[in-house]
């Protein structure tokens, strides 16, 4: 039957139409099936191509349908239907070129549909191997074109000579286009997936590198860092294990530092294997400065390192050198249990890890060195401090003798001296003093430099401190007829700093000023305030300091052009002064003109207690304890009193003169004042009278502590307590207790027992607990002591010669002054009911002597005194 180009039968239009309709339906079904296949498994190219060839074969009424895809220069069979397995296998193994010898080649060549009516009669046809195998005769092929490029050929053949018509060509072309879409889609998807994978890989790598970078920069534990690195390197490179080797430069050997995915035995073996620089894979990689890989360890000669790995079942590896500034730091090795190469990307990645590793190793080395150095420095500095401390002790001891014995002679203790002898002994004395001063300056300076100069902050009067300095210099100034002038601005009052150090600085400047000022000159000390600072200047009419020397005059052993030979000094004074002022938070300077004089000045910020103009009466004690102001000029006594009071939880402000004391009391409103009578300037009597005359300060109890015993006068002026020096800790604390600054803390206990051993025992147990134990061997003494000393508790033995325990308890109970004192009966006798009744209401506790337990006694005494009047019995 002849068929026209439209597939319509010429003879029977109806038939033709019917057939057309059927074919169109079939084609529609085919197309929709292909599309469904495409939609169902867009990524499964094989399934789509299978559907295409199936329908092509059927709709073209062909024996075989195939798709060949372009692979480089050739076309390879991708999918086939209707051909035997052998045929498919043969054709798949024999791709065809783009030439006229085959139909596939011709479609590839012309990119147009081609038909060979009979391959056996076609003169150009050359693939008789195919013809013999598959028996093809008439062949039709159409190109599959994607974006102008041919990607394949869809062809059908018949094993009889029966040419395909236009309709078949059209059907085939449609299918080719659909197959092409599928290919394009799959290609796109694959690209997308590859990109995605690449991206994920990159992210993964970046994350790993970030983690490694963080480990390198944040951890100084080298092994931890290297373990992190090797772990990530192995995981990211998709290998099974790895290790990091560190290069030991002096011996030119690599040592395995850490490993991942490696058994303990292998690691141990690796660590004991000598991996030299020559004739090893890692050595060669390091020398050549590039990664070297072994895809199969069976194929290469094995160095000791590779031998170990091979024996442990590893088959392939890559060694990446770790280099820094041309020096070998180590190597990173990753390995697989199977043979195989390592891609360039993997090697690139590993090089990044290697670089991080070398950085980590170098960091760790630098840090180790730094640590060693600073440890050495610390030891050196400690040695220096120890040396200075011991040297200063060793030097000071003989100096003390030199100075002391000179003084003995100067005091004429053992006979008179003639004028010359007196002069020489004075020289010995002053040289000794000078040496000691130098020694003290050196010691102070070394303490400042070592950061060990501790400051003792206190509140003091600036004026007093300056007057004190002037007083010490007065004699020397008078010898040169130098006038000493003090000018203190009215706003300058109290100051919070280290008073001793402040005076040390002032004295040093004053002493320099007097030293460098010629006869009949003038030295003026000024104190002013400038905003938040107190400024002190010492101005002389001396020789001055040349501008060139001004900068270095604060350095050690520089006396400027002022003549070191002529003027005796330590050369450390100004250095020390500046350091001390610095410690006090201030600064120091010099203004000078040669021949006219110098002004040395320093400024220190105002401390917690500012000027007298800014009283802070509402300030509460920082540590919560009561505040006591001690007014005492003798530093030793002040230190001692301060210690006693601070020990009892009292906050102490110490002042050294009456006027300052009054000021501080007015500002701080302490709970009590401890007052010395013999004070410079305004004496204790004046202070006491002034405090009592002022309604604001009158209620503050004053405890007088004085060498002079004038109790009558003290009490008449309003003192609450009067103690005569020397005073003990107990004296002071009980006086403060009586004026209710401190809570009642009567810690006196009276033990009445005829056995001195028992009293000793009680003392031994209770004295470490802070108790004062009074002992009485008999009842009469006991009762008298209880009356006079008012103990907090009485410890009583019942069996006593003479007045017995029962009588004593009764006596204490009957006397109103001792009635309240709790009694603990300590007895070895067994108490009868009658005994207990006799004591009823008079004793607090009964303790058995036989099984005496120190802890029980302590607990009993504390309980009795803390909760008095409770009547109970204990066995």
């Amino acid at each position, binding site marked *: 039957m002849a068929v026209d180009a439209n597939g319509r039968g010429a003879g029977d239009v109806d038939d033709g139409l019917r057939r057309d309709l059927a074919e169109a339906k079939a084609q529609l079904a085919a197309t929709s099936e292909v599309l469904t296949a495409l939609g169902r498994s867009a990524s499964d190219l094989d399934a789509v191509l299978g559907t295409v060839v199936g329908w092509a074969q059927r709709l073209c009424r062909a024996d075989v349908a195939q798709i060949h895809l372009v692979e480089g220069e050739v076309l390879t069979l991708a999918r086939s239907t209707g051909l035997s397995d052998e045929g498919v296998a043969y054709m798949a193994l024999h791709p065809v070129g783009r030439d006229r010898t085959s139909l596939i080649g011709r479609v590839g060549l012309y990119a147009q549909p081609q038909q060979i009516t009979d391959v056996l009669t076609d003169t150009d046809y050359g693939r008789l191997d195919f013809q013999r195998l598959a028996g093809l005769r008439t062949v039709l092929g159409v190109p599959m074109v994607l974006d102008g490029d041919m990607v394949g050929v869809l062809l059908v053949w018949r094993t009889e000579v029966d040419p395909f018509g236009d309709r078949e060509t059209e059907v085939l072309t449609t299918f080719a286009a659909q197959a092409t879409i599928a290919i394009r889609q799959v290609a796109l998807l694959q690209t997308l997936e590859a990109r995605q994978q690449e991206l994920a890989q990159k992210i993964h790598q970046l994350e790993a590198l970030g983690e490694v970078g963080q480990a390198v920069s944040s951890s100084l534990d080298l092994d931890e860092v290297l373990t992190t690195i090797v772990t990530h390197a192995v995981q990211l490179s998709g290998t099974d294990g790895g290790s990091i080797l560190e290069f030991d430069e002096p011996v030119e050997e690599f040592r395995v530092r850490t490993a991942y995915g490696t058994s303990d035995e292998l690691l141990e073996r690796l660590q004991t294997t000598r991996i030299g620089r020559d004739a090893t894979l890692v050595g060669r990689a390091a020398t050549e400065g590039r990664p070297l890989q072994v895809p199969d360890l069976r194929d290469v000669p094995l160095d000791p390192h590779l031998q170990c790995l091979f024996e442990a079942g590893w088959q392939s590896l890559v060694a990446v050198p770790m280099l820094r500034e041309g020096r070998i730091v180590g190597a990173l090795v990753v390995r697989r249990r199977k043979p195989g190469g390592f891609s360039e990307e993997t090697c690139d990645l590993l090089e990044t890890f290697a670089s991080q590793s070398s950085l980590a190793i170098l960091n760790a080395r630098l840090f180790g060195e730094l640590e060693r150095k600073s440890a050495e420095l610390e030891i050196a500095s400690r040695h220096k401090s120890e040396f200075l401390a011991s040297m*200063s002790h060793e030097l000071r001891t003989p100096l*003390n003798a030199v100075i002391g014995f000179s003084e003995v002679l100067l005091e004429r203790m*053992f006979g008179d001296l003639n004028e010359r002898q007196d002069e020489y002994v004075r020289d010995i004395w002053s040289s000794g003093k000078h040496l000691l001063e130098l020694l003290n300056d050196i010691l102070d300076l070394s303490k400042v430099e070592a950061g060990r100069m501790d400051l003792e902050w206190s509140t003091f009067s600036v004026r007093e401190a300056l007057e004190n300095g002037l007083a010490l210099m007065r004699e020397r100034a008078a010898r040169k007829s130098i006038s000493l002038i003090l000018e203190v601005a009215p706003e300058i009052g109290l100051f919070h700093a280290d008073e001793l150090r402040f005076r040390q600085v002032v004295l040093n400047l004053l002493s320099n000023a007097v030293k460098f000022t010629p006869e009949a000159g003038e030295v003026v000390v000024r104190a002013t305030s400038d905003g938040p600072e107190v400024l002190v200047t010492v101005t002389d009419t001396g020789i001055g300091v040349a501008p060139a020397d001004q900068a270095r005059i604060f350095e050690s052993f520089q006396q400027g052009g002022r003549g070191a030979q002529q003027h005796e000094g330590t050369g450390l004074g100004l250095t020390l002064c500046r350091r001390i002022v610095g410690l006090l938070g201030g600064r120091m300077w010099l203004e000078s003109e040669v021949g006219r004089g110098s002004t040395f000045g320093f400024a220190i910020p105002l401390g917690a207690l500012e000027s007298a103009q800014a009283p802070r009466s509402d300030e509460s004690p920082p540590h919560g304890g009561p505040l006591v102001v001690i007014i005492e000029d003798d530093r*030793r006594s002040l230190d*001692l009193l301060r210690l006693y009071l601070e020990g009892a939880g009292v906050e102490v402000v110490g002042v050294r003169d009456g006027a300052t004391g009054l000021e501080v009391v007015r500002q701080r409103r302490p709970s009590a004042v401890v007052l010395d009578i013999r004070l410079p300037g305004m004496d204790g009597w004046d202070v006491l009278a002034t405090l009592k005359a002022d309604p604001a300060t009158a209620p503050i109890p004053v405890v007088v502590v004085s*060498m002079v015993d004038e109790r009558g006068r003290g009490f008449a002026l309003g003192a609450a307590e009067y103690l005569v020096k020397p005073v003990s800790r107990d004296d002071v604390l009980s006086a403060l207790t009586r004026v209710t600054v401190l809570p009642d803390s009567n810690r006196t206990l009276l033990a009445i027992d005829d056995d001195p051993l028992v009293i000793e025992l009680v003392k031994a147990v209770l004295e470490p607990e802070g108790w004062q134990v009074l002992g009485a061997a008999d009842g009469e003494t006991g009762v008298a002591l209880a009356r006079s000393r008012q103990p907090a508790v009485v410890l009583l033995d019942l069996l006593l010669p003479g007045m017995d325990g029962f009588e004593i308890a009764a006596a204490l109970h009957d006397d109103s002054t001792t009635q309240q004192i709790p009694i603990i009966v300590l007895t070895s006798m067994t108490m009868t009911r009658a005994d207990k009744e006799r004591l009823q209401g008079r004793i607090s506790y009964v303790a058995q002597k036989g099984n005496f337990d120190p802890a029980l006694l302590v607990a009993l005494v504390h309980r009795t005194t803390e909760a008095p009047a409770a009547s109970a019995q204990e066995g």
Partner: protein
Amino acid sequence: MTDYRILVVEDNERNLKLVRDVLQFAGYDVVEARSGEQGVALAKECFPDLVLMDIQLPHMDGAEALRRLRDSPETRTVPIVALTAFAMREDREQALRAGFDGYLEKPISVRDLPEQVRHFLSGKEPRR
């Protein structure tokens, strides 16, 4: 002449001699000890009214000697005064914290020493 006996504990021979001579000159009865151990032993035997003790002694230091004297009934109440170096603030601090009744700074003032000692003795009767 006073009736007070002062025990001086000082390891440096010359400084010991200096303190001894100055105190003897002022009329005190002086007993010498050259170590903490000797000081503790002598204090129990000779009933001093005051102990002057160098704080920096080899072996048993001043603070330890002080503790032993305070632990012993015979010497518990004797005032014990530390001899400290003027330059060493920390010595002073240490002395007071250890429980000394006070301190005197070295170099001692030959002129003032008798008066300073009197200060620590004032109000007390000689023990013998």
